[in-house]
């Protein structure tokens, strides 16, 4: 019988961002986003956990080749996010506030179509050790 196993790979990136909605007044922006609305931005060391679900290949004993997952994660996400200003340098966040929620969703959309083996189960993004968001691809 084939067995489903969940494999998680961690990665880190550091980036800056600002929370600001141009449709809000300056007062509304400050009230909703607080310190995160500081116009010059601020940054975090984000920790990413990507969980892939799949059956264990009886020949290799792997769900998928970790090296391949690491490469996809690097090319599709870390290259784009690490040491960047998310609002200014990442296309998804040109008109979308780069909250931890939206970073998790953007990471999912970048990774899901690139996985050749297994399926993406969860993307977890830690903004700080005390705050993280999980996204499972749900509408």
């Amino acid at each position, binding site marked *: 019988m084939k067995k489903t196993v969940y494999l998680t790979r961690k990665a880190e990136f550091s980036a800056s961002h600002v*929370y600001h909605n141009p449709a809000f007044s300056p007062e509304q922006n400050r009230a909703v986003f607080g310190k995160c609305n500081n116009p010059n931005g601020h940054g975090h060391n984000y920790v990413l956990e990507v969980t892939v679900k799949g059956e264990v290949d009886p020949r290799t004993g792997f769900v998928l080749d970790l090296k391949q997952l690491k490469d996809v994660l690097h090319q599709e996400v870390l290259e784009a996010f690490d040491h960047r200003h998310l609002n200014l340098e990442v296309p998804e966040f040109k008109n979308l506030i780069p*909250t931890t*929620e939206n970073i998790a*969703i953007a990471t999912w959309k970048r990774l899901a179509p690139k996985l050749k083996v297994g399926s993406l189960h969860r993307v977890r993004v830690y903004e700080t*050790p*005390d*705050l993280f*968001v999980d996204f499972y691809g749900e509408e």
Partner: protein
Amino acid sequence: MKAYLTRRYQFSASHRLHNESMTEAENRATYGKCNNPYGHGHNYALEVTVSGQVDGQTGMVCNLIDLDGLVQREVIERYDHSNLNCLPEFSGKVPTTENLCVQIYQQLQEFPLAHLEKIKLEETMMNSFEYGDSDVRH
């Protein structure tokens, strides 16, 4: 799109695990060192997970200020540096971390801005308890 947001908090409290309906010997056999008559304490770590649609205007499931405020009022102010056995919710109920976890879930359930998914309560680095929706994701 639906996302799950988790926030971690800490509080410190003391308790004694002792059931009045058991004999002294049964209490000692059941609770071991936790039955020490003078109690003992822990630094509890609490994880609160809420879920909801990510708001198009704010990019958030809910505003952290609101969640932090609720947890501060309902949990931290109530339990931090307290003796759990002296609180009314543990009158006649043993303040195990299981019972405290369920109690905290009930106290936070009325959060109007997102759906409370689950509570995870770590008593020490070595053991933790979770309570929430029946189909809660781990």
